[in-house]
């Protein structure tokens, strides 16, 4: 097993609560993350991501590798930020791993974030172990991105589970309606 060195990573933390923001920031720095950027809400984060695209020198980084964002923030919350990152034409990297911090346990809200293309969830209260497990998962188990008329984001099917019933999927990888893009 390799030991990861996160020194070349740039992580953006978006959290309105100062205490939690410094907690996540400190934890990531101690885990070896080289460059850490913080924003206080989704709007702030969108402006920062635009700056990275337009003037990386001024932003202090050429790119962001992972976004860790709180869900409930004001005025622009984590969901709106996620939507912007995945769908907006000005988005710098629509494929960027997005870890959503959530205090909600209601399953429909989690489903809502999945539909918008979230990569991982980190639920409050969290431990250091939980934080690094999410980071490791982002690095070790990236999922292909799926683009259909109704969805854009990481493949929501995380694993191949054998299924006895009939396969009702209309399209397969070989279908002419399916295009696979490698990069």
């Amino acid at each position: 097993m390799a030991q990861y060195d996160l020194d070349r990573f740039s992580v953006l933390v978006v959290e309105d609560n100062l205490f939690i923001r410094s907690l996540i920031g400190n934890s990531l720095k101690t885990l070896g993350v080289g460059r850490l950027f913080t924003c206080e809400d989704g709007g702030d984060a969108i402006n920062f991501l635009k700056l990275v695209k337009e003037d990386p020198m001024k932003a202090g980084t050429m790119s962001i590798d992972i976004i860790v964002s709180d869900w409930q923030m004001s005025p622009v919350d984590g969901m709106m930020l996620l939507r912007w990152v995945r769908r907006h034409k000005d988005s710098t990297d629509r494929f960027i791993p997005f870890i959503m911090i959530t205090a909600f346990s209601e399953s429909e809200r989690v489903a809502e974030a999945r539909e918008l293309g979230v990569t991982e969830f980190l639920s409050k209260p969290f431990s250091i172990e939980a934080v690094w497990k999410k980071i490791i998962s982002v690095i070790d188990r990236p999922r292909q991105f799926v683009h259909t008329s109704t969805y854009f984001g990481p493949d929501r099917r995380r694993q191949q589970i054998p299924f006895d019933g009939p396969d009702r999927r209309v399209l397969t990888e070989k279908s002419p309606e399916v295009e696979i893009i490698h990069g």
Partner: protein
Amino acid sequence: MAEAADKPKVKVRFYRFHNRLKEKAAGAAGYKGTGEIPAELLAKAEEALEQMSEDYPDWVSKLVDRLGDQHRRCVDTPEKRRTYFEELRSIAHDMRGQGGTFGYPLISEMAESLYQFTGPSSGMSDNHVEIIKAHVDAMRVVIKNRIKGDGGEMGTQLMKSLHAAIKKYEGRG
């Protein structure tokens, strides 16, 4: 161009990229296995969290003071209760997400309850304001006595008396 016309429209696109992050983290190109963060860094991070946990009661007592201020305003200026309730709810939201992380799940539990009592559809009668006060008082006890975890017997008693206060004032509408 006949071929292009016959070709069905693409409905699904799969994007498969090489793992750039893994290259950054592991260094070696083409590295296939899984990785981990060095144990000593994890230990350090745990230690830093521990350190922050020690500061947490001081931090949270400021928030409880703010809750206390808002409660007083609810008493002094009843016509502006909606605004104060919103502020209370926003502070409670912050607190419910923090307490557990720093070893104070009772604070999270009480903040969650306060959050529910200050929602847009909650009542705003004097009895509701008393319920808010019961929450603030209970939180003060937790912080003053540094009651970590579930607080054992004391924690149970504290939650019991908070629930009793809620029941008492709720019954009065």
